[in-house]
């Protein structure tokens, strides 16, 4: 089984047929597996160097699980994740550690993602300490200290905050600390899991701007996960829409918003409120029936079948896979091609 593929020098992350299934166990004494949650059920996508791929969807669609699987926090049930040509799922501990230097994560909840008992200086320094301890980094303690202070300033905080504890900061500031930590090792790829969802509107724009500036300065590549479509539109070069563990549409950002093809994407876009009363008055909303379902069954037809207003017979018995229907625009729907 090859763990290396031919490099297309432009592609930083290449995810192929990724599946992450969680067993549902029941029983008190003898735990029996009675089903699976198919959180991620076969997705493919790539991210090129320097771009931002927005991953959007509602709760239960599998976007957070995808990020965590890429970060190797969950073990994928199937599939390959190639970071710069190496399959992360097949690496041994040592090589995985090396790979982690290039791939870091920003978390959603600023309150929960910082250890309340460590100073923020220690939190930011930790990755550097760990890698120095393993011999991957040749730096001294004072180098580390200096880097931590520099990072703090880079994210807009004073270097004198080094010895403070997380509870002394506001939500927005905590998120900046999380970003500083993610930057410590100079990664190439940053997985941002809903980094602004828990923040107030006026702080959101500050953090989005910060991420934007950092990307320009350091040539970062982002996988940006959010449920807010307006935020995704603003920050992404390309967007992938997820539903029930699969990608239903993936396209260049402006193209997706200009011409959404998949019925789910259309419904999603029409459901987003726009802060403009005139626009709101004149729009036509597509209201989806029913609830966001839970990914607990194996499916033999289109995952969106139950809620789709344009379903056809063929959709019930065949699973549509992503196919290219326009330049840089792929969609998984039989409205656009035959099974």
């Amino acid at each position, binding site marked *: 089984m090859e763990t290396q593929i031919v490099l297309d020098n432009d592609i930083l992350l290449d995810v192929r047929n990724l599946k992450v299934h969680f067993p549902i166990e029941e029983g008190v004494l003898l735990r029996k597996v009675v089903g699976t949650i198919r959180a991620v059920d076969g997705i493919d996508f790539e991210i090129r160097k320097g771009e931002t791929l927005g991953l959007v969807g509602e709760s239960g669609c599998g976007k957070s699980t995808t990020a*965590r699987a890429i*970060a190797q*926090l969950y073990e994928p049930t199937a599939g390959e994740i190639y970071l710069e040509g190496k399959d992360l799922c097949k690496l041994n501990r040592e090589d995985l*550690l090396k790979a*982690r*230097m290039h791939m*870091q*994560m920003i*978390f*959603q*909840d600023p309150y*929960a*993602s*910082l*250890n*309340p*008992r*460590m100073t923020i200086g220690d939190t930011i320094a*930790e*990755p550097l300490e*760990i*890698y120095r301890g*393993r011999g991957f980094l040749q730096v001294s303690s004072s180098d580390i200290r200096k880097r931590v202070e520099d990072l703090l300033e880079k994210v807009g905080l004073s270097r004198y905050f080094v010895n403070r504890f997380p*509870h002394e900061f506001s939500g927005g500031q905590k998120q900046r600390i*999380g970003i500083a*930590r993610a930057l*410590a*090792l100079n990664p190439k790829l940053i997985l941002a899991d809903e980094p602004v969802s828990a923040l107030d509107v006026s702080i959101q724009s500050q953090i989005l701007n910060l991420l934007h500036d950092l990307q320009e300065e350091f040539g970062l590549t982002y996988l940006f996960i959010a449920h807010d479509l307006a935020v995704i539109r603003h920050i992404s070069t390309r967007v992938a829409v997820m539903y029930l563990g699969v990608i239903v549409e993936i396209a260049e950002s402006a193209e997706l918003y200009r011409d959404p093809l998949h019925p789910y994407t259309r419904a999603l876009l029409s459901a987003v409120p726009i802060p403009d009363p005139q626009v709101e008055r004149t729009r036509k909303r597509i209201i989806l029936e029913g609830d966001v379902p839970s990914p607990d069954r194996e499916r033999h037809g289109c995952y969106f079948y139950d809620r789709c207003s344009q379903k056809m017979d063929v959709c019930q018995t065949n699973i549509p896979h992503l196919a290219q229907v326009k330049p840089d625009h792929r969609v998984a729907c039989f409205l656009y091609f035959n099974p």
Partner: protein
Amino acid sequence: MAIYGLTLVTFYSLLSLLAPILPIYSYKHQVLDHQYLPPSLTKTAGELLYERQEKTLMEAARDQGRSELNEKEKEELSVLKQRINQETMVFDGKAVQVHQKRYILGTDSLGRDLLARIIYGGQVSISIGLVGTLTAVLIGLIIGALAGYLGRTFDYIAMRIVDIMYGLPYMLLVIIFMAIFGRNVINLFLCLALVSWLTLSRVVRGQIISLKNSEFVQAARVVGASTGRIVFRHLVPNILGVVAVFTTLQIPSFILMESFLSYLGLGVQAPLASWGSLVKDGVDGMKSYPWMLFFPGLAMTIFLFSMNFLGDGLRDALDPQSKNKL
């Protein structure tokens, strides 16, 4: 309340530590004449002996129908008085005017000063409590934390061991252990610790399980932290509040366990005292010499209360959510 607790505990600890240099009598020197002397702040032992003898003689005289002492009896008393004023005994190479001693808390059945015995007993009890608890905490913390974080096989096996040990009558175990390995203080520490780590390991495990999926732990994994680092640098510091409270509440428990053992005669051996053994001695003479039970009991109770208050205060202080945090 916690401050009172802290003050008292510190006071006790200091007394115990400084016992050898305190101006108190020895805990093991016996003066058989001074058996069962009641506590007295002002009167010397000699005076008490004299009074006691006088009272006995008077009672004997009254039984005989007299209201006054006869010559022979008065002679006896005066001989006693002389002896009191002059007699010395040699203790550790020093001659001491033994009847000039003042026993503030009285004496026990062998004429030993109760105050000294309580203080030295405190030394023994507190150190058993402390060392035993720390050992138990160390074992419980490591096993509980690893079980909680690693889960699966390690957790299963560890928790089954805990379950089994819970089912065993631990006092019985301790007694058997002491019988086999001898009755000294070290063994006492060890076997008490071995049966007491169970509850803490379960508590720690529960806390770790609730924290191990927090985002800051995930963040630590993403930056490459090893299991050891995550457990001991990230998780354990966040559950210290619980551990601290457990520790302060376990110390009294240890002391009580030791008292129980001493009561059975399995605790510290004479002439060493511990609060437990003092209480045992006290119970025997409860009716006639109540101070022998009262003072050790009081000393122990105050200490246990103080530890409990201290534990409460510690919990509040270490809880990052509480307003009284450090």
